[in-house]
């Protein structure tokens, strides 16, 4: 009974009960419609200046696995796409990425570590694709290496038989050479000593003397002839001197001839010796001829063996060269490179602490809730207060009360935010420019959600109803922002709506300011077009509902009016004649 009473108090009126139920259904509907599709669109940015087969294959693999790839011409643009939230990962391919031993460049993954849940999910997916590609490469490399080893083994077997043949050949050569050595040893190179000097001298003396003898003979012949002539002519007696001379010449000639005879004897002896030597030499030469023939034969055999061995060696060399070439043909021979053929590096875009990463989300959630709850509570408080009743009949324009609520809520939220921001600035060491930017975006956020809060306050009958609506609204915004679950989980058709989700737009700004420290108003308010439109619509609606609902709901303090019942035509005509509009001095 008490519970029933409590529930009745809680669900004071039908509309609040309906909202409580509808709100739950609304959240369920959002959940089902946002996350019903299993397919997902994961945006990955990449930059590749000089493509290669490997980079093309990796991109093809990613594209085939459902990733939506965005190409950028520079790393800066690629990284910006991550900071702006277009994609969660930027892949920077090194120039001419290849799988080779001497290629040391790495594939760089630029990630936004502030979106850790999304990033690691995507990184895991990308890395699994990348790992798959690496595995294929590893298999190929290992397979290539094993094939090369098999080939080399076969070649070495051939080389082994060739080496054995060479060994045999060399043994034959050795034999032949030993035989040659023996044959050479057999050659007698000794010869009888021949006094050739004496033979020469004797010959020259013989010749000289023979010449003298010849000359003397000639002279003798001439003298004799002269003598004979003179004797003939004169019939004189022969001059004694002539006869002496003739005698002397003759004696000399005789002596010469005697000398010549001795020389000839010596020469004869020498010639005999020489003839003997010659005969011996001829014998030796014959033997040498025989040996030469044998040596020639041996050398020929040895040469043949050497030729054969040379051929075998060339073949072996070729085998070795081929084996080397086979090994050279292997892309990678280092074990670590085979296991990790393409090296990858994960580089966080901004160096931010965990506290720094947590702050934007916490700050934004605080701002959203404060703005929604403060403004809706102020509306309800003013509306439900009997003091508010007086305000509705006061001469002040309604817009003044609307703006006073707006300003009051803004003061409250901004004061709260200011305390938060100062602490954050001290903790993270934010610069003054960044602090001011943070303040500017905070005011924009607060204003937007205060408009929404006023609207919620106007639509709600009680504070708890406004609180519940605020939670439902915030929950839907959170679901559609990737704060709770990654955006990539959201149905593809709804993903375009994320860009117009005020929570996501403001979150993006906060991230840019707090984590990336972005400076510049243009970048700060990028993607705010939908926010401006949304804020304008909310402002208009909140003002409209404020000015109409407030009076209606305030008047409930005294009961609810019933719609005029349909009157008979005649009565109506009569009344219309009588009715005059109330006049009030302003």
């Amino acid at each position, binding site marked *: 009974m008490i519970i029933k009473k409590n529930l009745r108090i809680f669900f004071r009126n039908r509309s609040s009960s309906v909202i409580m139920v509808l709100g739950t259904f609304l959240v369920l509907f959002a959940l089902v419609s946002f996350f019903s599709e299993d397919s997902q669109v994961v945006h990955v940015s990449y930059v590749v200046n000089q493509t290669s087969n490997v980079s093309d294959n990796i991109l093809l693999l990613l594209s085939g696995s459902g990733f939506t790839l965005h190409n950028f011409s520079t790393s800066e643009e690629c990284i910006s796409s991550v900071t702006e939230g277009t994609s969660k990962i930027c892949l920077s391919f090194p120039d001419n990425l290849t799988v080779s031993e001497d290629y040391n460049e790495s594939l760089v993954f630029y990630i936004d570590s502030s979106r850790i849940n999304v990033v690691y999910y995507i990184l895991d997916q990308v890395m699994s694709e990348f790992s798959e590609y690496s595995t294929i490469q590893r298999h190929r490399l290992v397979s290539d290496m094993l094939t090369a080893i098999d080939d080399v083994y076969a070649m070495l077997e051939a080389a082994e038989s060739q080496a054995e043949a060479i060994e045999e050949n060399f043994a034959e050569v050795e034999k032949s050479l030993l035989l040659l050595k023996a044959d050479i040893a057999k050659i007698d190179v000794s010869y009888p000593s021949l006094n050739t000097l004496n033979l020469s001298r004797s010959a020259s003396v013989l010749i000289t003397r023979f010449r003298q003898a010849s000359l003397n003979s000639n002279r003798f012949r001439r003298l004799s002839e002269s003598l004979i002539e003179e004797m003939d002519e004169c019939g004189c007696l022969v001059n004694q001197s002539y006869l002496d001379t003739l005698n002397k010449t003759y004696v000399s000639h005789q002596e010469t001839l005697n000398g010549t005879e001795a020389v000839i004897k010596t020469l004869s002896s020498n010639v005999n010796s020489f003839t003997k030597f010659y005969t011996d030499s001829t014998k030796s030469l014959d033997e040498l001829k025989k040996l030469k023939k044998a040596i020639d034969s041996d050398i020929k055999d040895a040469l043949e063996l050497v030729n054969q061995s040379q051929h075998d060696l060339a073949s072996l060399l070729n085998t070795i060269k081929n084996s080397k070439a086979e090994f050279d043909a292997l892309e990678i021979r280092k074990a670590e490179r085979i296991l990790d053929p393409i090296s990858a590096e994960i580089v966080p875009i901004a160096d931010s602490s965990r506290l720094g990463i947590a702050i934007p989300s916490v700050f934004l959630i605080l701002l959203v809730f404060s703005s929604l709850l403060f403004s809706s509570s102020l509306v309800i408080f003013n509306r439900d207060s009997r003091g508010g009743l007086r305000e509705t009949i006061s*001469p002040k324009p309604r817009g003044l009360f609307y703006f006073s609520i707006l300003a009051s809520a803004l003061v409250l939220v901004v004061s709260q935010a200011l305390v938060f921001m100062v602490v954050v600035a001290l903790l993270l060491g934010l610069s003054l420019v960044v602090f001011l930017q943070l303040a500017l975006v905070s005011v924009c956020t607060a204003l937007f959600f205060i408009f929404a809060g006023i609207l919620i306050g106007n639509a709600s009958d009680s504070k708890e109803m406004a609180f519940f609506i605020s939670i439902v609204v915030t929950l839907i915004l959170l679901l559609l922002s990737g704060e709770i679950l990654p955006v990539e989980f959201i149905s593809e058709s709804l993903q375009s709506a994320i860009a117009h989700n005020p929570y996501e737009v403001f979150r993006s700004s906060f991230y840019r300011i707090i984590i990336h420290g972005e400076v510049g108003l243009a970048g700060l308010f990028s993607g705010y077009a939908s926010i401006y439109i949304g804020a304008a619509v909310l402002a208009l609606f909140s003002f409209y509902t404020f000015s109409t609902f407030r009076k209606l709901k305030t008047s409930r303090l005294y*009961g609810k009016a019933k719609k005029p019942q349909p009157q008979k035509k005649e009565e109506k005509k009569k009344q219309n004649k009588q009715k005059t509009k109330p006049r009030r*001095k302003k």
Partner: protein
Amino acid sequence: MSILEVKNLSFRYRKGFSLENISFSLKKKDFLGILGVSGSGKTTLIRAVAGLITDYSGSISLEAKKEKIGISFQQPSFFEELTVRDNLAYFAKLARFRREEFAKSYSFLIDSLGLRAFEKRPAERLSGGMKRRLDIAIALVSQPEFVILDEPVGELDPLLRKKIFELIDVFSRRGCTFMITSHILYDLERVCNKLLIINQGRQAFFGDAKDFMEEVNQTFKTRIVFSDKSELEKMKKSFPHQKISFSGNTASMLHKKETKYVKALFDFLDKEAIKIAEVKVSQPSLEDMFVRLVSKEEKKQ
């Protein structure tokens, strides 16, 4: 010239209660007392005149600037979290009342209503009577030309009622037009020059208070208590009793002084020797007057 003119005002709540064809007009400095029992439609009329109800039929013409209208609702209406002074200052500001004049008006009001000792106390910590006084002070703080007070003294003690009516009298003498609701006729008798009586959403009387009071003063209520019910039945059988109402063994009627009807009744009772236990003659109550006025109106219709 009328400051307020209400013509054929009709309004219907969802729950079924309605106002029907209320018409009256007030001139400047008039003091209208709206009289009716609880739930008769006084507050609905006030709400319509204050502008809190707009979907009525008929017309309401109020020739007063908004800032010159002071209203005190049946339930105290101010911000409970603010102090007495802050509430008065805030609502004076809303009524575009000058700061210098406010100080004067403020002092006069809190002294007159005995709120000086509580001026810095949050309104939520005031007693019911003090809250009522604060609400009246808020209605009067901006020196309004037209004041609407809904049951201003309903739950207050006689001393305080007197105090508040004295204050109202001061403002009335300054030229302020008043519209006050009450269910106690004698509260209004002292201050009102006009009277509007509403019964079950219908206008029972509108006119000079003096005329009404005169009629009230000239009207008497006679109650005859019969010794037993059979005696009453005897009277009922033989005497035309349309003007008489019965309750148990009591018969009561309203009448002017020395009317023929009353004389005839007593003659009849005397002649028939009907036993009477008691006869009481008194001033009629407001309800009695309503019944009389309504029956008169019905007869007219």
